[in-house]
């Protein structure tokens, strides 16, 4: 589904954020991208989600080479991903419902369908009773669940979460991870970056990054070498 071949990413005036990355993620997999701060986890997720292009190498997603993708086609590709960020990136001048409906407005879904799908997504993350509330009034865990609702409302085939539990205490973090596991169980590919490997009750793949390179320390993870 996603294949990295000799991928390098370098930001202007900086060292290589990623070096010689080769990996393959299959459809429906649960993948943890682990590593210390500055290891390149966020960069890797940005490359997967076509937010950025690699400096060298190719990224193949569903037979499309993302490196060769035209800028005007990028938004349409991004719609296939559900993105969740550590800082939630919620809009605090809108209520919960309006935050979640945004991807559907972008996809030009009619308002009746949108309302139904937003309520289903809010229900899935346990926030249906808070649809009229402003996200700023929610707890950290609830805000992250709201961000998940926004990511899943357009029914993406891949969920990408960049350190979604980084700012949460253990109880909330477990709650969030359980939501990801439930999506993986219904066939969604879930890619989660985190500092440490969570205790997953289900089968998963680990990609451990260190200084921009894939470390082979976790030998049980099947990687493309």
């Amino acid at each position: 589904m996603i294949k990295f071949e000799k991928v390098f990413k370098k930001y202007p005036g900086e060292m290589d954020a990623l070096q010689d990355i080769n990996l393959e993620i299959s459809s429906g997999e649960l993948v943890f991208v682990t590593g210390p701060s500055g290891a390149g986890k966020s960069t890797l997720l940005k490359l997967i989600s076509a937010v950025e292009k690699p400096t060298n190498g190719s990224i193949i997603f569903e037979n499309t080479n993302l490196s060769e993708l035209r800028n005007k086609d990028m938004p349409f590709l991004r719609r296939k991903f559900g993105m969740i960020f550590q800082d939630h990136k919620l809009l605090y001048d809108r209520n919960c419902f309006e935050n979640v409906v945004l991807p559907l407005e972008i996809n030009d879904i009619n308002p009746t369908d949108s309302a139904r799908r937003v309520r289903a997504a809010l229900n899935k993350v346990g926030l249906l009773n808070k649809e009229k509330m402003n996200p700023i009034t929610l707890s950290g865990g609830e805000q992250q669940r709201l961000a998940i609702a926004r990511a899943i409302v357009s029914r993406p085939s891949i969920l990408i979460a960049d350190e979604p539990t980084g700012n949460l205490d253990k109880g909330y973090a477990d709650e969030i991870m359980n939501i990801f596991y439930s999506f993986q169980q219904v066939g969604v590919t879930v890619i989660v970056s985190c500092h440490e490997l969570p205790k997953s009750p289900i089968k998963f793949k680990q990609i451990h990054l260190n200084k921009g390179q894939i470390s082979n320390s976790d030998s049980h993870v099947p990687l493309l070498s």
Partner: protein
Amino acid sequence: MMFIIIGITLCLPSAGYLIVENVRQISTKIQHEAEISIFLKKDISQDQIDFIDSALKSSPEITKIHFEPKLVAWEKLQSKLKLSTLDIGISENPLPHGFFITLNTLSKEKINRLTEDLKLINGIDNIVIDGSWIKKLRAIIYMIKVGLLSLGSLLVIVLIVIISNTIRLQTLTYQNEILVSKLIGATNSFIHRPFIYTGLIYGLGGGVITVSILKGMVIAFNNLAERYEYILGNTIVLVGLSATDYLIILLSAMLIGLFSSFFSARQSIKKLENLY
């Protein structure tokens, strides 16, 4: 606030245009009625007068001929000045016979050719083209029009800068929304759309204010002119612009809003892309 700024800024050249259009229409009307005065020699005979009359009648450029004998002219002058010959000590009529002709052409060349031909006729003493001042007025109107066009262009640039800056500030206000929308797959046109609509609404609102001010000006001026009619001795009527002119003002304002907002939003959003 933005509506008022756009409305008043557009009002300046539009009001100038309204005034110039009114003066131009008056000058055109006067010019069509302009006369050439032909003063005859004092010792002219009736045969020569008849000859000149027939010569004038044969000219295709002349539409109206009015002959005024010197006696009639003298009586008119006296009654106008409310004087008698005794008062001014003139016993003999000093005025000549005169032909007053109206032309069907405004062409300088044709009028010059006609006056040159008339000068050749025996018995004609002097020819005065009464419409020459109108030509000067026309030239002045033309210069004012050019000035207004330059002023209008400058004010359009001012408007573009004001609207662009407002839209740029709005993109900064909605920076988070723009960034999030881009991250979750919004196209540039989706993101530009609200800013373009805002620009269009600014233009429309400003245009409506301009048209309202112009219409108000015309009504207020005409009411005032009517009130002072007894002093002025004549009613001066300011004619409003045509529906097409008002529509052009409205559409121009909307276009200015549209283009300013489009280019400003595009530039600002391009800069925001570096903040991912």
